[in-house]
């Protein structure tokens, strides 16, 4: 990931004002291009020759206006493309592509489970400042020994989503809640959170922990209030390491979890699902341990209910969720490798 999320941060206001923005997942691109419907034709006509991370400005009917690649690609596509857009007639701007909509079946696996619950998560590299956890600033990054090879974006939070099925999230609500009662969180949820979501995705594509790499892990809920809403405290810890001996482990996260959950029986829904994991992480990124900070350094990961129903809130938890094996493994993290 480059500075400013491939340059999109720098042009976000311009995009918001002038465009309808579409994020094309690389895996969906592959499936879309294989369909013979209008979606596939549109995509094939609007590929940028560079491939990879790139941007294309196009008309609704699929006439490519401009493209750009890499960190400056968004600005390049916008600057050139918007000029070209202004040259079009009203009719050209509003024309739709011929043909019928054809969605590839793989899109289904990239759709949240029906009746399920979505949490959004932010993972952020932190520092200790006078014993307190604090955000890393751009000024801090000037110390290249503490932050080797870091781009400013590594000090920003990385965003991910968590999916629970309807049966899973309902398991968190006691049938007859009694104040003071503590019970374990469903194993499937515990293992999913530990394996897929207590990871450091701040440097780019995150890895996952295997079942064996969960050296210890517990997660419980305690009922603190039963009416008019059910308030619960989530508490737990997980030690996740690549070696059974944490001292020898190339990568690890020693996390403590704390959370506040509120279930509203009238709405039959959680109205609060705030969880924080904090602890020492080591090992850098998942492509050879780049950007590794000296020693063990704090990593914070927060979870909360999504606030909207937009594309960001519906992004699948895994980049390759379109494939059957990762999809099944995600929803059976306590059983499958």
């Amino acid at each position, binding site marked *: 990931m480059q500075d400013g999320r491939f340059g999109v941060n720098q042009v976000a206001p311009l995009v918001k004002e002038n465009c309808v923005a*579409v994020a094309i997942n690389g895996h969906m691109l592959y499936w879309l291009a294989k369909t013979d419907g209008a979606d596939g034709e549109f995509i094939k006509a609007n590929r940028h020759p560079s491939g990879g991370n790139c941007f294309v400005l196009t008309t609704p009917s699929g006439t490519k206006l401009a493209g750009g690649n890499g960190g400056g690609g968004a600005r390049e596509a916008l600057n050139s493309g918007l000029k*070209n857009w202004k040259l079009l007639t009203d009719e050209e*701007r509003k024309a739709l592509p011929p043909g019928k909509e054809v969605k590839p079946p793989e899109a289904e696996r990239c759709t949240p489970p029906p009746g399920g619950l979505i949490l959004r998560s932010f993972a952020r590299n932190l520092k200790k400042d006078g014993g307190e956890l604090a955000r890393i600033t751009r000024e801090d990054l000037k110390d290249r020994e503490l932050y080797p090879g870091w781009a400013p974006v590594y000090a920003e939070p990385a965003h991910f989503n968590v999916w629970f099925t309807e049966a899973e999230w309902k398991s968190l609500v006691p049938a007859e809640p009694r104040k003071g009662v503590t019970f374990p969180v469903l194993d499937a949820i515990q293992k999913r959170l530990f394996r897929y979501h207590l990871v450091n995705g701040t440097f780019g594509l995150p890895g996952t922990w295997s079942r064996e790499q969960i050296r210890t892990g517990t997660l419980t809920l305690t009922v603190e209030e039963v009416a008019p809403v059910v308030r619960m405290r989530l508490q737990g810890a997980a030690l996740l390491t690549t070696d059974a001996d944490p001292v020898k482990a190339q990568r690890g996260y020693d996390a403590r979890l704390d959370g506040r959950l509120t279930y509203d029986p009238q709405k039959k829904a959680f109205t609060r699902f705030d969880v924080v994991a904090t602890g020492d992480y080591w090992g850098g990124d998942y492509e050879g341990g780049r950007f590794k900070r000296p020693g063990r350094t704090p990593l914070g990961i927060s979870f909360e209910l999504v606030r909207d129903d937009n594309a960001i809130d519906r*992004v699948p938890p895994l980049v390759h969720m379109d494939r059957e094996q990762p999809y099944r493994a995600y929803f059976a993290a306590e059983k499958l490798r």
Partner: protein
Amino acid sequence: MDLAKRIGIATVLAVAGLGLLAQPALGEATKAPADPFDKLHQLMAPGPNDSQWMQVPWMSSSNIYAAWKKAAEEGKPLLLWYMAGEPLGTC
């Protein structure tokens, strides 16, 4: 002049003007909560200058059809952001 030719000329003009687009002010800082748990929770969230890409109302690649209909209705072009992974999530 046909569409392709007009686009070609405009591209040359636009490249000459690269970098001239103004950057509007970024978002405002949120108020720090009093509860230590809330304070910790908020520490991980994007700050006022972080993750500006999240302020854009992105549409998903699993619904291209809706995106081009919206673009035609609003009279706007589509900006397609391609990534080997997921632009809005893991990359």
